């Protein structure tokens, strides 16, 4: 990959990676740092990574960096994880996407990651598998379970409202 291609990858993918990492980590500063680290790693290997594979490389690196970050934070107890259907009735929602956004935050990390890669980036199951190190069937299962959880969340919100 040339320097021009590297810079083009910044223009094309930095926003997407930032959104993905931000949703995963829920912390702007950590997300920015992760994006920078991701591109730093790409730069050190830019001669070995072909431009065709750069998006996958970036998301793979960002995903693993996010998971590492979450593990570190989990040890500190700063980030709480959970899968219980936690619905706050005090929240004011303006649209479905806002509700979904809340629901996505409650998904287990792995389900959240595969769902975001699927919906935000339109990756195939196979590509998501390559990024996350899962096989295609596992990816499918996580996505199906995530959707079921989101649907139940929507139903619960509907019932509350």
């Amino acid at each position, binding site marked *: 990959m040339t320097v021009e291609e590297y810079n083009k990858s910044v223009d094309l993918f930095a926003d997407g990676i930032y959104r993905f990492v931000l949703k995963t980590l829920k912390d702007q500063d950590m997300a920015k740092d992760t*994006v920078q680290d991701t591109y730093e790693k790409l730069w050190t290997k830019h001669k070995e990574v072909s431009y065709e594979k750069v998006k996958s490389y970036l998301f793979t690196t960002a995903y693993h960096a996010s998971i590492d970050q979450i593990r570190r934070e989990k040890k500190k107890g700063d980030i709480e994880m959970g899968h219980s259907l936690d619905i706050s009735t005090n929240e004011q929602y303006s649209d479905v996407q806002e509700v979904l956004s809340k629901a*996505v935050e409650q998904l287990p990390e792995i389900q959240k990651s595969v769902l975001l890669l699927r919906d935000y980036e339109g990756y195939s199951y196979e590509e998501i598998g390559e990024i996350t190190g899962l096989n295609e069937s596992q990816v499918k299962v996580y996505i199906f379970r995530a959707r*079921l959880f989101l649907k139940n969340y929507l139903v619960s919100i509907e019932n509350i409202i």
Partner: protein
Amino acid sequence: MTINRLNYELFLVDYLDGKLDPFLVAELLIFLEQNPDIKEEYDGIQNSVLEKEAITFPNKSILKKKSFSKNGIDDELAYLCISSVENLLSEEEQNLLNKKIYDDVSLKKELLLFDKTVTVADQSIIFKSKSRLKRTSIVPIRQSSYKVYVGVAASIALLIGMFTIGKIILTNNSINDIQENSFSIANYQPIKKNIESVDIKTMSRKEEGNTLKNSFSKTVNSEKAVAIELKDSAKIEMPIPEKIQRIELSELTTSNNWPETISSDILSKQTYPITLNKHLYASNDDIENGGHIKEIGVFEIIQYGVKSIGDFFGANLQLNAKKDKNGKVKEIHFESKLIAFTAPVGKNE
């Protein structure tokens, strides 16, 4: 127990149900023979026993539960709905889903709910510091070629710089206008510094690095220096940023008679000389540190030439230098949107 007219019903019901003890059955039958009215009643009851009819439930299959589990989903409808969202439905599954929705319209709402689980990225969230991630090209250039390229570029920049500065002087034809225009070399936003007091006893032409407290010092190595008097106020306006300072003076006069010393009397009138001949601008750091006023040398003219070229093409070209204590350029750094390089300056480098 003997069967009689008072208790025969107990035995008769058990007999009809087939539960009567065989020993008592014979006794009961004898009793019925002895009591014809009760036998008649028994015959009526016997005829009223219902027999099983061959009636079956027509659609047992819909009541049955299937053992279903696909892609981690145990509910078939949920599986079909999610598969629909994921565009994974086979033709058979699509038909099954359609049939289910046709049979029960309320299931359509279920499908719509699953449709809503597709999250959409918020495009307003962007990574703002993309420029910090970008890299500039590194082009390997042979040293001999590099010297030629840099030499040619420097010559062009030098010519343009000299031409532009000369044009300013010739066009405006007065030192006051030079003040106005030449300091636009820096072309930066100015700041104002008010010098409230100048605490100095003497200042000589030969001194180097002589200090003016809270102000600036000077280096005089020109035969002809320009003395500037700040009469009404000692306000100095300087362009800032990084290195360059703009000095706006209220009045400029040229003088061939540089005073050997400056008495405190002069200072008390808020009047003191500033060399301008070679000293068009000064480094902010230098002034703050009480150091030297920078001279406009070849590098500064080249620097100005580079900037002029950048302005002409609408590009942000920057040429900076690291200097040693004596003001000798040790390293130059050029930066533009497309290319940046740092190069040492010296005969053997």
